[in-house]
């Protein structure tokens, strides 16, 4: 099971995410939410507007797999990609993250992080970034 680090939580909660969904045949639709709430080790909750629910409802019903990229400056400063399984409860999109990747352009792109020991993920972050979340 994936476990988000404090830095990952802070960026997701502070700036939300671009959320990639697709039909079961792979036709993609992206929505963007500007904040999130992280619960437990790997649950990310997004509050959606009605129009966003309408846009992705069918996709989530037929194919719950989603990919998340941190929003705003997080797209490059918090170079993570989170993949998981999503469900809608009313206007809340609940994502259980089960894969975490590095998206820093270059040779580390696509490096899978959640398979590393948790301490190694923290060390990986500490040697690449000085911040612990988005600027206040």
């Amino acid at each position, binding site marked *: 099971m994936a476990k988000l680090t404090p830095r990952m939580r802070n960026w997701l909660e502070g700036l939300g995410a*671009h959320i*990639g*969904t*697709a*039909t*079961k*045949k*792979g*036709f*993609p*639709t*992206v*929505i*963007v*939410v*500007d904040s999130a709430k992280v619960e437990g080790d790997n649950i990310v909750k997004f509050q*959606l*507007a*009605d*129009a*966003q629910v*309408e*846009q992705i409802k069918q996709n989530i019903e037929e*194919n719950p*797999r*989603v*990919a*998340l*990229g941190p*929003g*705003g*400056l997080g*797209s*490059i*400063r918090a*170079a993570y*990609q989170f*993949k998981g399984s999503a469900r809608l409860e009313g206007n809340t999109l609940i994502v259980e993250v089960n894969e975490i990747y590095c*998206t*820093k*352009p*270059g*040779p*580390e*792109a*696509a490096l899978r992080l959640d398979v590393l020991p948790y301490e190694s993920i923290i060390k990986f972050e500490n040697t*690449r*970034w*000085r911040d612990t979340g988005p600027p206040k």
Partner: protein
Amino acid sequence: MKLPKEIVDVLKIKEPDDLIVYLTTSSVDGKCNIIPSLFTDVYDDEFILIPDLFAVKTKINLNENRIGVVTIAYPSEGKKWALRGPCGHIEWGVPDNYSFQGIRAGDVLRKWGDWEEREPFTSLPEDIRPAVIAQRGVIVLKVAECYSYEPEESGRKIS
């Protein structure tokens, strides 16, 4: 579709860290992948170009399912656009006359195959600059539709 001038101007090469976009692709059975890019340009007002810098999973998806979505990540104020359409990659080594959605590989690679000539990566802040530059080719998205991702009107078509 031809993109409105406002969108072309945002996506055209200017300064290296003036715009960040996401490119979302999917496997043929619906597993998405989303990657950021600091670099975009526009060809013929309807093709979005992105250098291929280690976009491994994106290319695996595009090899089996040629569609993608570009969304503006930063700065997004007044630019909350999602641009979707046929998407492929033109790699160094393909014949000049290889064509994707009407554009020739030779034309793309001659002009954008060495992106750094047009937009120097060295001017990027060190902590976000790729450690090694090894451009494999150019990712091309022909915009077929543009929709707003503003939450309250998400999905509304922009002509």
